[in-house]
């Protein structure tokens, strides 16, 4: 795994439908300055900057890393951009960490963002390329059939998706940065919203958010403040179309989890991981990923959700921050998972802190559930 690396600063913007008051540059700078402030550092202390965001078609800004370098104090420093679709926030953290773990840099600033209000993600993901035989409408249209197949295979009752939609929004009420904060959120409210891509209801989907997240990663001899130590990092990918592909529980996700657990010495994730921030953009992906990540046996994930195990006061809290279902600046959503995992083991998650959290999982996925990025962070050195 290379040299030790720790998260020493986390910065987030408030996530909301539209940030009319800032440019793209102002948005990323806001998150970066908060991360630096958390670490007690300035741009001058940073050796390299890694930027992540989802497809350029979302804002129509090509090579945003070139445009954003000034705002991130990157003049005269290495700056690069990462893109792995929805998992990009996670991959961005891992690329940044690898620069420290490899001994190339002492302190790396990682930043990810999306300003979804500048266009429309469903438009950007549904480009109607000529000759294409596909009939997919946005991310929801793509994932709905896979959710249906999970429901069939597992025999999960219909209301499990609703439970996740409520649970994550209840958590969001405890997170000052969360986008969707719906007072009095309950099952009736979720079930009264229309089916968009059946079996996905409106309130079972993530919002479209503007926002940015940043972290300062440091080598062991550069650690300041309260560190979250990286215990394992892993990325995996697989083709979107391949014979025999299991779209409900993709092999790349299982392999990625196995790799990160091995590095961190985790053999029983449900018991050993105190809190998990997992990329759940559609509510049913919680039980699906509970199985894919080995927190539950195949076909059993929904039972953990139904029993309340993944609630903030459950035995294995998932998405204490409110998760992607509550805030979704797409390019940043993965980095937020990784950052929230770090906040938990640093004991700095505020009202949604899981008491005594010592080991946390950050997870992101993207594309047609074909790119995966994960890390495990802990309060003590690996």
């Amino acid at each position: 795994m290379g040299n030790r690396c720790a998260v020493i600063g986390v910065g987030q913007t408030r996530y909301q439908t539209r940030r009319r008051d800032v440019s793209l540059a102002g948005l990323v700078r806001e998150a970066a300055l908060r991360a630096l402030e958390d670490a007690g550092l300035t741009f001058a202390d940073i050796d390299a900057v890694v930027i992540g965001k989802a497809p350029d078609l979302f804002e129509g800004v090509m090579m945003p890393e070139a445009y954003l370098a000034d705002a991130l104090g990157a003049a005269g420093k290495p700056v690069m951009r990462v893109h792995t679709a929805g998992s990009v926030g996670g991959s961005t953290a891992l690329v940044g960490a690898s620069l420290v773990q490899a001994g190339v840099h002492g302190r790396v600033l990682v930043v990810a963002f999306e300003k979804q209000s500048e266009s429309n993600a469903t438009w950007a993901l549904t480009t109607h390329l000529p000759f294409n035989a596909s009939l997919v409408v946005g991310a929801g249209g793509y994932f709905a059939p896979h959710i249906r197949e999970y429901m069939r295979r597992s025999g999960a009752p219909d209301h499990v998706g609703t439970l996740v939609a409520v649970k994550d929004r209840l958590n969001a009420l405890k997170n000052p940065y969360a986008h969707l904060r719906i007072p009095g959120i309950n099952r009736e409210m979720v079930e009264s919203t229309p089916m968009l891509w059946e079996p996905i209801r409106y309130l079972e989907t993530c919002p479209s958010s503007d926002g940015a997240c940043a972290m300062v990663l440091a080598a062991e001899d550069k650690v300041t403040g309260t560190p979250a130590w990286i215990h394992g990092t892993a990325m995996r990918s697989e083709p979107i179309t391949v014979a025999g592909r299991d779209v409900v529980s993709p092999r790349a996700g299982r392999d990625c989890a196995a790799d990160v657990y091995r590095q961190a010495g985790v053999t029983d994730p449900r018991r050993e991981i105190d809190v998990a921030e997992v990329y759940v953009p559609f509510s049913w992906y919680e039980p699906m990923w509970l199985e894919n990540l080995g927190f539950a046996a195949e076909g059993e994930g929904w039972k953990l959700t139904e029993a309340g195990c993944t609630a903030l006061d459950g035995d294995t809290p998932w998405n204490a921050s409110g998760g992607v279902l509550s805030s979704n600046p797409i390019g940043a959503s993965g980095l937020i998972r990784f950052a929230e995992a770090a906040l938990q083991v640093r004991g700095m998650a505020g009202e949604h802190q899981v008491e005594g959290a010592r080991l946390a999982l950050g997870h992101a996925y993207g594309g047609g559930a074909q790119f995966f990025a994960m890390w495990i962070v802990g309060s003590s050195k690996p």
Partner: protein
Amino acid sequence: MSEDLVATHVLEFPGGYTRTTGPVIGRFLTELRDRRLVGVRTAGGRVLVPPLEYDPDTGEPVTEEYVEVGPAGTVQAWAWVGSPRPGHPLDRPFAWALISLDGADTALVHAVDAGSPKALRPGMRVRPRWRAATTGHITDIECFLPEVASLVAPVRAEYRVTPGRALTRFLEGVRDGRFVGGRCAGCAAVYVPYRESCPACGSVVEEEVEVADTGTVTTFAINNLPDPRAPEVPFVSAYVLLDGADTPMITLIGGVPAHEVRQGMRVHAVWVPPEERTLSMTNVKWFEPTGEPDADLDDSTGGAR
């Protein structure tokens, strides 16, 4: 009442009344004619805009100190006028707004040309649009306009797209009413549409295989959002595993109500008449049920057994 006993009557002083402004209002209007906005300071220190001659709090005369304010200001509250009347300052929908000009302690009522009520919000920043010719009247300001906070940046990329060799083979098949796949020499999987390399093992796919135009719905979504490729809402987009293929294709299901579509349902392609066919997937109108019993599904991949 008889129509004969209704008459229109106009009361309008010929030429219009005069209004003597007095020194305070006069100063305001004079500055306005010069495209400046001023307020007057009260003895208590407040800046009134538009100015008043007597402090409404104390009844005392205001001071002789005039303070330049604005020209930008902040919208405090508004009423939307959806159907402007003849005497209104704008001939299109607008807002009457209370505008607190920078440096003023009171708000000015004026029109805001915001386009849509959705564009307005408390705290919105606005600036005056002046008339070409000013005369010393409040209408020297035609209206207020939102400050520039965003712009439209058209981005257009135009490509010549060709389908490539493999997809061309597939589309030629579709033109002839058949589905062409390819069998991987390494792992024997049959890919539909035809492709030239296997995503699993990387081998070259050389062997062309024709697969059936019948298959099984492995899973599907009922879409309630309209799409130009679907005739109506709701429509079903389904993964159909064609008989003889190892990868499902996403297609429209028709000829059956959306909520009667099932996983495992047997379906067949509905082709448009031969004379209407082109090198395009539009040759397949949709897939519809064959009426056969449902197929078993494979739990490991969601494909048909």
